[in-house]
């Protein structure tokens, strides 16, 4: 279902990436000479202390931001070569995002929220409805299709968020602390869902998390600290 990686079995390649933010006259060096490869079909957990740059890295992979130096490619597309306009279309085709605070549009029902990314495709209305139904069924929310976000629990809202993230069948699903705002029980349901998407549907997932309980569900965990990635947590 997802595009196969063009080279060496790695779907995502981050090579020599450096990211510097400027705040006033101050330079904030967040990532330095960072390398990461994520093979297709992997469920990767990205951990690290607050402020270590996890979200920054995820945003670079998802084409929401550009590296100061280095290269990022997903499924063979080098995002630094795309214009802003091309990058927006590229995101619509390849990336599904799941946010910590769900980021649903409050004035739209669950099914309309899920339909949003499909407005960027060439699908007809009937085709869109079918895709939305499928996505809502996968997250177990068929009966909540007509509900507005404010009438749903946090866990349900995040499941709508995941349905929106997968409805276009993207190459890559990026989740930034998807359980960060949920209680243990709802969080577990979300993790079950992500795990099922990975195992049963072969979805490649990168998930930022603070929670060892969450990272335990991933197929691999990497740790970001002081701008560098390691395979073991630093003490």
């Amino acid at each position, binding site marked *: 279902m997802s595009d196969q990686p063009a080279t060496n079995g790695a779907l995502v390649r981050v090579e020599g990436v450096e990211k510097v933010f400027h705040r006033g006259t101050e330079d904030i060096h967040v990532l330095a000479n960072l390398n990461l490869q994520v093979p297709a079909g992997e469920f990767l957990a990205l951990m690290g202390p607050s402020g270590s740059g996890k979200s920054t890295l995820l*945003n670079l992979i998802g084409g929401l*931001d550009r590296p100061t130096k280095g290269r990022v490619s997903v499924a063979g597309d080098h995002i630094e070569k795309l214009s802003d306009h091309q990058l927006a279309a590229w995101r619509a085709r390849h990336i599904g995002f799941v946010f910590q605070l769900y980021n649903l549009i409050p004035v*739209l029902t669950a099914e309309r929220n899920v339909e*949003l990314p499909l407005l*960027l495709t060439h699908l007809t209305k009937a085709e869109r409805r079918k895709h939305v139904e499928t996505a809502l069924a996968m997250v177990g929310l068929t009966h909540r299709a007509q509900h507005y976000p404010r009438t749903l629990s946090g866990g349900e809202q995040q499941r709508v968020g995941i349905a929106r993230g997968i409805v276009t069948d993207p190459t890559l699903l990026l989740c930034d602390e998807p359980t960060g705002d949920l209680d243990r029980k709802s969080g577990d349901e979300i993790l079950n869902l992500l795990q099922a998407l990975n195992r049963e549907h072969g979805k490649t997932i990168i998930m930022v998390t603070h929670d060892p309980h969450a990272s335990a569900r991933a197929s691999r965990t990497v740790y970001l600290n002081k701008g560098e990635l390691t395979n073991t947590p630093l003490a």
Partner: protein
Amino acid sequence: MTALFNWFAQIGSIARFGLMSIPQRRGAVTATVFGIAGVVLVFVGVLSIAAGFRRAMANSGSADAAIVLRSGSDSEMVSGLGRNDTRLIADAPGVARNAAGPLSSAELFVIINLPKRSTGTDANVPLRGVEAAATSVRDNLRITAGRMFEWGRNEVIVGAGAAREFAGLEVGGSVKVGRETWPVVGEFTAGGGVAESEVWSDAKVLQAAYNRGDSFQSVYVRLNSAGAFQEFKDALTANPQLSVKVLRQSEHFAEQSTAMMKLITTLGYLIAFLMAVGAVFGALNTMYSAVAARTREIATLRALGFGRGAVVIALMIESLLLAVGGGIVGAGLAYLAFNNFHAATINWQSFSMVAFAFAVTPALLVQGIFWATGIGLIGGLLPALRAARLPIAAALREL
């Protein structure tokens, strides 16, 4: 094709969220809409005065009718013509005729003082002496109450506008002319034209009452056709016995109203402009807060792949819809409040009262909504550009 459709779908959905979230911002939105409505209301209101005045003046004369004054005079007030002149004018080529002779009315004009109905204070009213052809040399002249005065008798008929403005000017009433009192025997309309602000009597009777001998101030004529004007004018100006100024009636009345028109129009634009500046700030504020309230929402849509252009256009549409909504409210209120509102003003060229009705014309309504659109465009553009330039990653961090 599909790409274009896709783009419209993006714009449509973003604009829709904006409009759907209006109830949450109803305070600022209502203030903005009514601010813009106020601009349009005042603008249309003030200019409807000018439009009504212009209409009153324009309705006063048609293109196939002419007025002749002594050369060098800007208005009837300062003009003077003798019996000889008026005869030559009546017999000139191009003048229409009926069984009774040429359709030509030599007229004179005095100012009398009458108390206004509203305040009781005196104001100037033109009392015009006319000849038998007077009703045929003007358009739409109709007796609406009573009867025409009898020739040779001390009687008057009054225009509907004058009747509305001044005390005693109703059929059965009377006016003081010099030391005499003349009965009002009829009332007339003139299609909203200037004549409606006047009081009329027989020219001969008026000449006698004011010791004017056999002198007049103007001659009104009906021409064979609008095209006959040049021939008529050329004949009079070429005649060495005459020294006259020849105008189409429509031109003459338009000229009489220019000073007034300029004043009102300038005033209208000035007030509307000042208010519009205020309204632009209101719209800016509303749209900036709309963008601020939706920063994360817009960033989310951009993350999903919605385009920058779609964000700008959607926000502009929202701003324009609010503005046009305000414009329609303002234009509607202006129409209800001002259309056909009756008023009277001094005509500065004749120093007498002209009664007229405010005219909220379709052109004015369109202009008003055009102003509203301008306010919406200016007020929406900067906030929309700010929204489009939001760095997505940074905006997503905002709560």
